[in-house]
């Protein structure tokens, strides 16, 4: 009864929550950054002669960025809930409904909205934006490498673009499946009304927006000249832009931790009645493995960057040899995050294609148990392989052999994923759609990425290949050839459920072939120059590498056109595509049982699950 009266009391006046949106957040963020900047300029003591050149500027930059962060999160409304709770009066029912975005139309996409479907679309939007920016930078890199002497980009600008492209794409690929589809589709797929912690869900998205600004800011104060790995001590002597990178990583790490806890809890606690682990769709396993893997990985990333910030701004010596630190410490911390992180990217994309494989072959998923074991095996092993990035660092030559063992062991669970996919294709009724062909493309690209990975896992071969373009081509084959292919297929597959309209078939095919052909042309060329001895991250190279580099550049432009066609497809199909039926693919997972537009809490009556989602084929089992 008390809630009811409170509800009535609040209803007439406009609650603070209703006044906050992305614009108040931007305004408050900017004001707060400026205030902190002026204050730190005024009150921070001048440095002594002995201190490092940029130390005071680093302090000011980092503090201003923290100011931005706190201001933005306050302005978006992230603190209203905790603050109210602290005051002893929780949000009223109407405020909660407002937060969920009920009856708010497009405005809810610009607010701290808790509905998982809104968060999913927001994630989709920011993923597209990140790929647009990161892809644009890739085009600048490839254009610069069209000629051996490089030239039209200043080396510092080039290095900064390489670093920013790297970190943007890493973040973009981390969120590309678990963000849009993990948020929009996953709760419906398990038969839940929302995520376990809807406000944390909104928080995880807006943290990514808050993180973006320091990264862009960094571009204007010297850039990120260290590559995405930001090795120390190079990062210690890098310009102020490095502070933008540090802030970006710290905030993004918070976001993945929040999202990881939320998604894991949702899947463990909120699956529909009767959805035992054996009846849980394989995509759910992929999403959970991905975010659960991020849970141990990203705190380490966070820590590595905090220490980096201390070294830069406070003249500590975690990574500084002269003061007793070691660059090897950074490398270890970085790769303890860095290797699980590639599987954070890969697993949900492969799992999404596993989810689609039975739908487009009209037969059951082959060996569900092997698929689960494969995902679990990769996740488990992936935390034990980080030092294969450091074979030739000289850090611990004795550990090379054990790390070679763990790394090569990963090929066993990875092989299981291949078995599941080819086993499902075998004797299926092939329905020629872009997602079906994406499975083929994934098998092809991931095969090349995987086999080249075995060469690189071999210490003597790595002594030749490490740090060359061969490595760059290898990880693009895994993260882009396999990962991005899965994400694009997911987009086409779940597009009808997210927008109510079918994705334009013709555009999906054009984009598919342009991206896949362009991709293989580009990165085969990159393998060639790597084998011939071209190092990574160079803005100029020996003239003998010119032809293959030109091939790569041409391939890259083809990918760009393909991706622009896809973007056009997203916009035009969402606006005036063919209206989608409830279940256009005749799939058996729960998200296809709800009508579009999906009601606020997804289900009027929560579903009860009595079998797994793979009962295709003539003989029903």
């Amino acid at each position: 009864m008390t809630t009811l009266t409170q509800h009535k009391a609040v209803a007439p006046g406009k609650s603070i929550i209703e006044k906050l949106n992305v614009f108040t957040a931007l305004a408050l963020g900017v004001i707060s950054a400026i205030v902190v900047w002026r204050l730190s300029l005024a009150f921070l003591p001048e440095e002594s002669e002995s201190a490092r050149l940029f130390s005071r500027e680093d302090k000011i930059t980092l503090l201003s960025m923290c100011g931005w962060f706190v201001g933005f999160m306050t302005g978006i409304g992230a603190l209203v809930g905790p603050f109210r709770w602290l005051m002893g009066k929780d949000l009223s029912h109407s405020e909660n409904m407002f937060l969920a975005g009920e009856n708010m139309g497009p405005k809810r996409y610009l607010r701290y909205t808790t509905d998982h479907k809104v968060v999913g679309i927001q994630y989709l939007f920011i993923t597209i934006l990140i790929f647009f920016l990161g892809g644009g930078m890739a085009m600048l890199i490839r254009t610069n490498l069209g000629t051996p002497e490089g030239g039209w980009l200043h080396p510092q600008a080039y290095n900064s673009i390489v670093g920013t492209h790297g970190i943007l794409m890493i973040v973009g690929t981390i969120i590309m499946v678990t963000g849009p589809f993990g948020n929009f589709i996953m709760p419906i797929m398990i038969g839940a009304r929302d995520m376990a912690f809807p406000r944390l869900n909104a928080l995880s998205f807006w943290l990514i927006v808050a993180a973006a600004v320091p990264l862009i800011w960094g571009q204007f104060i010297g850039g990120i000249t260290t590559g995405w790995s930001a090795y120390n001590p190079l990062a210690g002597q890098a310009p102020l832009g490095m502070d933008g990178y540090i802030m970006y990583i710290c905030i993004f790490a918070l976001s993945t931790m929040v999202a990881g806890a939320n998604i894991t809890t949702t899947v463990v606690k909120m699956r529909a009645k009767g959805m035992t682990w054996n009846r849980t769709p394989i995509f759910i396993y992929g999403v959970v493995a991905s975010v659960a893997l991020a849970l141990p990985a990203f705190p380490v990333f966070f820590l590595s960057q905090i220490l980096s910030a201390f070294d830069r701004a406070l003249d500590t010596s975690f990574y500084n040899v002269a003061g007793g630190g070691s660059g090897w410490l950074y490398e270890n911390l970085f790769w303890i995050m860095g290797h699980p992180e590639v599987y954070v990217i890969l697993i949900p994309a492969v799992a999404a294609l596993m989810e689609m494989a039975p739908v487009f072959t009209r037969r059951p998923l082959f060996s569900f148990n092997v698929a689960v074991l494969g995902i679990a095996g990769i996740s488990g092993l992936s935390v034990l392989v980080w030092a294969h990035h450091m074979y030739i660092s000289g850090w611990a030559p004795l550990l090379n052999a054990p790390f070679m063992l763990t790394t090569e062991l990963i090929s066993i669970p990875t092989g299981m994923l291949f078995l599941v996919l080819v086993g499902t294709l075998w004797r299926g009724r092939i329905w020629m759609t872009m997602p079906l062909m994406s499975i083929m493309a994934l098998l092809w690209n991931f095969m090349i990425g995987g086999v080249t990975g075995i060469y690189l896992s071999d210490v003597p071969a790595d002594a030749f290949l490490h740090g060359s373009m061969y490595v760059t081509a290898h990880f693009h084959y895994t993260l882009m050839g396999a990962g991005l292919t899965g994400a694009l297929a997911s987009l086409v597959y779940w597009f009808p459920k997210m927008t109510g309209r079918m994705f334009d078939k013709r555009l999906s095919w054009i984009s598919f072939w342009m991206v896949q052909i362009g991709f293989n042309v580009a990165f085969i060329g990159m393998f060639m120059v790597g084998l011939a001895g071209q190092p990574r991250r160079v803005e100029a190279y020996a003239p003998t590498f010119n032809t293959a580099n030109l091939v790569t550049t041409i391939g890259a432009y083809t990918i760009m056109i393909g991706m622009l066609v896809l973007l056009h497809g997203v916009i035009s199909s969402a606006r005036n595509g063919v209206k989608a039926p409830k279940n256009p693919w005749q799939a058996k997972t729960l998200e296809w049982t709800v009508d579009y537009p999906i009601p606020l809490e997804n289900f009027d009556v929560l579903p009860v699950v009595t079998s797994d989602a793979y009962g295709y084929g003539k003989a029903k089992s």
Partner: protein
Amino acid sequence: MTNLMTPKSPQWWKKDDVKKTFILWILCTAVIGYVGVEFHVRNMVDPASETMSGVISLMRVFTWAAAPVAGLVSAICLTVLTSKRHYGDNPPAEADHEIRNSPKTAAVWVVVSGIMCLFALVAGLIVLQHDNEAVLDSQAIQVNVTGQQWVWNFDYANGARSEDLYLPVNKPVVFHITSVDVKHSFWVVQMGIKMDANPGYTTETAVTPNKIGVFDVRCAELCGLLHAYMQTKVHVVSQADYDAWLSAHAATEAGA
């Protein structure tokens, strides 16, 4: 791996799609193995040391070992794609095939990939052991390598210092590598060796050049503004030429 269908069926290998897949498997394996090996070997630099020759033959062996797996996956995809395809907006009829599991196939698959994994590991370890021992060779020439933004410096036992590396042919050499500023990576491309230059630490790697000529040294770790230009040459010369060069340079050092 053709027993993807139920093992109980008496003559599963006589089915058309199994036969087709088998033939395609052999074809794909041959093509992928050949193209893969040629692609790697042709693009790789001509070796100027046993170490590099070892890397090349390792790539050859690994590619041939991986070819049957890649061939099988490709063969199954091709069989599937050349079977009856359904186009259109509505789903095709349900498939006749509804095998959900085949423990035997999974077991064979895992055992085979386990054996291949073991093979790759042993092949790698043998070469690795050989490389590790080379570093301990006390008869070898000792050269100190120092990276700094953005040049390499080479110091020889007699006090000579140069920015181009000079080495005698067929004589083992051990490099002691360090850096004065940030991390670099010392890569002698045609000799197949690479080792990071870390500030504050010294790392070792060793090689025996076996060809007279001029080869490339490049930095393989992003080290700042002019990383792309941090490269130099290694001149592998006859023992007599090397001795002459070394004494000439030692003399200049002493004279200066």
